């Protein structure tokens, strides 16, 4: 089992400034799953109840001189502490920029190693960052879990495949920051959030407790997938009435999720996505959030990066 690669400058920027801070908010521990073509950061795919998150990079987006081999179709997966990974990367970067010169001198080498840690007789696996400075080399070892067994890796791959299905209707959220500040304030009111999404391009969120009902509605959103024209007769109704009529008509779906999960999913604005879409999976299985990234300086989607998460739906009867 071998993995080594050089992180490109773009890869360092993506990870250090954008993705690792965002992934760290999602959860301390994630799986890093490396294949011949992709590096994928996965949260909660094997243990069911939290937000499932998948951040996938084509290898060219992060690395060059990428070499991987394993007896399991060249796939390796392990668990890693995101904040440690972030710290190691940050400090390697600072050494690179401080001492590095020339195009090759300041390259950041990353590899999988097994080492004997101090005060231990058992060799342990590490993800190692190696930076060559002017006169010195700095090596940072980030401890990782034992690589996943063949059976677990298969399980992870199956969960990953299952997490790829697209909701039939997706609406684009116009302003992530605005939505985040709203949801952050909403957290004080209650714990359960009803989210409904219509084919007319409406996103309706509502918290309802014994003492208060608080909701927000966004209309005229861009729709991807199944769409329909909003009935004229509904135009002057309240948000609540319109969304329940749309559900009866089969033009909308509604799910209940945790406000905390919803707020957490919005932390991905730290990864600086160019747009975000919300959709409800068939049968209301989960609330899916898909973030898109554009190729810098264009409005074209960057297919080498993909980021999405799936919020578990809470059973209203159980809580």
């Amino acid at each position, binding site marked *: 089992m071998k993995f080594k690669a050089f992180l490109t400058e773009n890869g360092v920027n993506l990870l250090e400034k954008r993705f690792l801070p965002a992934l760290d908010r999602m959860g301390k521990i994630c799986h890093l799953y490396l294949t011949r073509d992709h590096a994928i950061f996965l949260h909660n795919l094997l243990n069911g109840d939290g937000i499932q998150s998948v951040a996938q990079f084509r290898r060219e987006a992060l690395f060059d001189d990428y070499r991987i081999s394993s007896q399991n179709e060249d796939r390796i997966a392990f668990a890693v502490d995101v904040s440690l990974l972030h710290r190691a990367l940050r400090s390697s970067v600072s050494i690179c920029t401080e001492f590095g010169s020339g195009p090759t001198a300041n390259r950041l080498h990353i590899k999988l190693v097994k080492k004997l840690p101090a005060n231990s007789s058992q060799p342990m696996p590490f993800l190692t960052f190696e930076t060559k400075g002017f006169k010195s080399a700095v090596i940072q070892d980030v401890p990782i879990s034992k690589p996943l067994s063949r059976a677990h890796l298969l399980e992870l791959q199956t969960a990953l495949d299952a997490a790829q299905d697209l909701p039939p209707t997706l609406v684009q959220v116009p302003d992530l920051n605005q939505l985040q500040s*709203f949801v952050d304030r909403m957290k004080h009111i209650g714990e359960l959030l009803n989210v409904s999404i219509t084919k007319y391009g409406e996103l309706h969120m509502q918290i309802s407790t014994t003492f*208060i009902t*608080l909701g*927000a509605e966004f209309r*005229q959103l861009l729709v991807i997938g199944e769409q329909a024209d909003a009935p004229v007769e509904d135009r002057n109704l309240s948000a609540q009435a319109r969304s329940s009529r749309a559900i009866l008509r089969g033009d909308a779906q509604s799910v209940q999720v945790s406000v905390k999960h919803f707020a957490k999913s919005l932390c991905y604005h730290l990864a600086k996505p160019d747009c975000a879409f919300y959709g409800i999976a068939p049968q209301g299985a989960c609330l899916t959030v898909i973030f898109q990234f554009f190729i810098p300086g264009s409005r074209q989607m960057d297919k080498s990066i993909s980021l999405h998460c799936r919020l578990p739906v809470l059973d209203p009867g159980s809580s």
Partner: protein
Amino acid sequence: MESSATDSDAPDLVCQLDNVQGMVDALTAARWKRQQDAVIEISEHGMVVIVEETSCLQAKVYLQRELFIRYEYGAQGRPRLGVSLGLFVDCLNTFSAPGHSNTIEIQYPGPDMQLLLKSVDSLDASIYAEIRTRIPDTISWDYNFEPAGSTPLTFTVKTAALKEAIDDLEWPGASIQITVQPNPPSVTFRGDGHGDLQIDFMYYANADLLLAFHCDRQVSYRYKYKFLRATTSNIPGSVIRDNRGSKLTIGRGGLLKVQHLVSVARTSTSHTHIDSTGYQHPSRIAYIEFFVKPEEDEDTADD
């Protein structure tokens, strides 16, 4: 409840406000603990939000009709409704997104006697809320504030200095004695508890802290620290930034009145200069009054 809502379609109140944050600030000043029941009294002059605790402390937040860009009052008498202050403030807060103009409409009552709120400034993004109201408890004691003598005993102190002094008195804690004396003109806060700490505001020495002073005889009363602290614990940052003053008056029987001013001006039109007494066009100010009863077992230095 009044039957006014049933026989006419017009609600008791429909009003619009263009600075939600100002209202949040003003009401937050009266939040000294998590669970507080507030009574909102609506009249043709505006709204008063009243909160009290164990008959020793009362706060009133006056939101005059001039603060609202629209204020339609259609009730007979003065309708009163009870809400949870925390819930009301948290709810208002969700309407106040930074970097956006937030105009909200407040209506009372809704079909089920709710307090209805909705944003009115954008068609494509709207926020709405319905807060359940309850029939308010009667106000347990009347804070009938009367001057202690022929001349009022009053002083005005920089709000920031007052807050700092009260925060510092946390260490001795327990009860705080406030002494106002004419000669030399000064105000003394003294705490005796785990230790003792005395803070003096000398009128002539600290003219920029003690802004006004009226006292013709010495008086001295003790107040529970936790009630005194409630009067400044949640003073909004805007009050400190605007460098405002708070007016304290000691009335008959030692009843202490603390008055703060909170700006509810739109941020875009906020005044660049406010003079040292914190005077600004009165229509854009919310008034907050606290009434604190003195501790009873204390022998006072004056009547």
